């Protein structure tokens, strides 16, 4: 441990170098999970069990592990990879091949701007260095993100044009027109928040939210407008006129098959994840824990006082936070075990052809979830217990500089970064579920309704919101 602490700077450097590669890959890995959530979520909303057949045959268990439909994404992948690469003879060749790559690349570039954890200060030769939570932390952060997001529509338009098919072209035209309409209100809705924070840098926006309160509380109207714009930006229901499968076959990807179609779909889901991360960062405090300071009792400081739950507080109370998160996770896992056991009993009632293997399989799930739940509860207790016996405060080698900067050991910093990343992932998960949830609740808007909503309603509300925010901000800062 001392050896690692002695070479902390090297570890930070390696992490800083690995992040730009690791982060897009982590986001990429969430795509198949989101697909499963979408399919099973749709099924549950429609009162059916959804995809639950494909699974891994495990030879020694006498059953196959179906893992709640997760293998379906793998089978989908295999199917799409080995499908005949059909290309229409009337396509415009170069652009047709180029088009599916553009949205994927744009979507994989966007995680670079989002701060995944708080900036970690550390000392090298008594000089302060920083490991920044986002790969690009500059004043152009949000603009870069919008630029990447807008570029992805080029893939759709290019694909639809080069497919040389009328359905594709209609889809592409719809998509581009919608993108133009909604980018206006998207930019204007986020301007209100930018007025208050005074920066385009997403890291600073998150820090501002940690110091004041979350963006959703200061800009509720802006949040709603931004949410709707993001749905339009991601081409999701109720704004999926670009695809519009009931009207124009498949929209822009009518003529695409196999891997190229898969890339369009992957890009759509990547965009959803990035949009979720962006909404969480802008309006739900990013990696921040709570939107308001908590009253805390401190006998040395003389009674009750309000404590802002910033990163330093998080690092000082890491044991408590780990305890809370692990306990909540453990309870959720135990409830999942209870639910799965209920399903096992239910399968026993039915005349299943392979009842025995189902019983084994669901027994395994029950044990796995139960074990994970108990393990998390024990780990949470351990975290709390460790904090009680050896508080992190004692381990801080406080070298207070003039800026009142705290320095923490390597493991505290990394664990905090992990915890903050998980908090952001949780908020992302909420928005990702919102995407799925909305899709299976609302019907698709008609094209003229979308245009009317974008230009006649949302643009006006965004402008009024911006005006009111500007006046109020000016009045408050005077």
């Amino acid at each position, binding site marked *: 441990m001392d050896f690692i602490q002695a070479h902390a700077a090297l570890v930070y450097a390696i992490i800083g170098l690995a992040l730009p590669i690791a982060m897009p890959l982590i986001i990429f890995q969430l795509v198949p999970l989101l697909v499963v959530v979408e399919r099973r*979520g749709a*099924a*549950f*909303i*429609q*009162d*059916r*069990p959804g995809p639950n057949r494909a699974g891994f045959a495990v030879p020694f268990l006498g059953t196959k592990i179906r893992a709640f439909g997760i293998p379906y994404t793998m089978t989908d992948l295999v199917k799409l990879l080995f499908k005949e690469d059909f290309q229409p003879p009337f396509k415009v060749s170069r652009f047709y091949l180029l088009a599916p790559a553009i949205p994927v690349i744009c979507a994989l570039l966007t995680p670079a701007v989002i701060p995944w954890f708080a900036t970690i200060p550390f000392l090298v030769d008594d000089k302060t260095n920083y490991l920044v939570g986002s790969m690009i932390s500059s004043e152009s952060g949000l603009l870069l993100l919008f630029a990447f997001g807008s570029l992805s529509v080029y893939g759709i338009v290019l694909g639809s044009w080069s497919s040389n098919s009328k359905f594709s072209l209609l889809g592409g035209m719809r998509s581009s027109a919608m993108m133009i309409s909604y980018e206006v209100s998207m930019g204007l809705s986020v301007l209100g928040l930018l007025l208050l924070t005074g920066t385009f840098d997403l890291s600073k926006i998150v820090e501002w939210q940690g110091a004041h309160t979350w963006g959703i509380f200061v800009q509720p109207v802006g949040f*709603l407008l931004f949410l709707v714009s993001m749905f339009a930006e991601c081409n999701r229901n109720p704004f999926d006129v670009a695809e519009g499968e009931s009207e124009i076959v498949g929209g822009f990807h009518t003529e695409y098959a196999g891997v190229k179609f898969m890339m369009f779909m992957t890009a759509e889901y990547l965009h959803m994840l990035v949009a979720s991360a962006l909404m969480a960062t802008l309006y739900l405090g990013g990696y921040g824990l709570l939107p308001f300071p908590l009253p805390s009792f401190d006998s040395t400081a003389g009674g009750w006082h309000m404590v802002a739950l910033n990163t330093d507080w998080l690092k000082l109370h890491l044991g408590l936070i780990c305890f809370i998160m692990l306990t909540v996770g453990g309870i959720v896992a135990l409830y999942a075990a209870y*639910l799965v056991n*209920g*399903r096992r009993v*239910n399968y026993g009632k*039915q*005349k*299943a*052809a*392979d009842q025995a293997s189902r019983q084994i399989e669901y027994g395994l799930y029950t044990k796995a979830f139960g074990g994970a739940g108990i393990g998390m509860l024990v780990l949470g207790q351990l975290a709390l217990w460790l904090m009680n016996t050896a508080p992190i405060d004692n381990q801080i080698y406080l070298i207070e500089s003039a800026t009142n900067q705290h320095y923490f050991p390597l493991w505290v910093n990394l664990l905090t970064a992990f915890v903050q990343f998980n908090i952001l992932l949780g908020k992302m998960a909420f928005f990702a579920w919102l995407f799925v*949830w*909305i899709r*299976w*609740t*609302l019907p698709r808007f008609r094209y003229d309704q979308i245009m009317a909503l974008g230009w006649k309603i949302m643009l006006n509300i965004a402008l009024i919101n911006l005006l009111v925010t500007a006046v109020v901000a000016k009045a408050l800062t005077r």
Partner: protein
Amino acid sequence: MAKVVPRPNLSFWEQVYFVEIVKGLFTTLKHAGKSLTDADHLKVINYPDVAPVVPRDYRARHRLMKRADGAPRCVACFMCSTACPARCINIVAEESPDRHIEKRPARFEIDLLLCVFCGFCVEACPCDAIRMDTTEVVFAADNRKFFVIDKTKLMDWNPKDYPETDIQSQKAPGGSKNAEALAALTSGTDH
């Protein structure tokens, strides 16, 4: 004549639309939560683990009715094959050994791959010889020829599988007369 659909009078909160969206979201969330926690709530048949219950009057695979002596009730009148829109019934008629019956089918074939299960053959039949109440709706085979079912397959059914109250399915009209006629034929008293 064009029907005028009146525009619904929406209240202010309905026009705002967000409130209604939130209401709808809670409706779907209720369904999702119930489906997640209660397996009995899923309104599906777990086919093929569990065989679907097909009602008796559901238009399923055909069967040919029998007389009391086991002969087909069909008189090879070609009414069913004429009524068939899919032209899936192929009948070859021959002379019946029973003097009271003019014809009987030498071959009676139904191509299930062509059949559209419309039930016109059942309605067209003048002597209730063909029915579609076997409750067999799922056919699987690895060769097309298995889907062409002939007279033996069509008449291969057990009276125990059909309700007792359904007299028609057990006894053919004129079945006893047919038996009497057969008995008279063999004893040589008739004509």
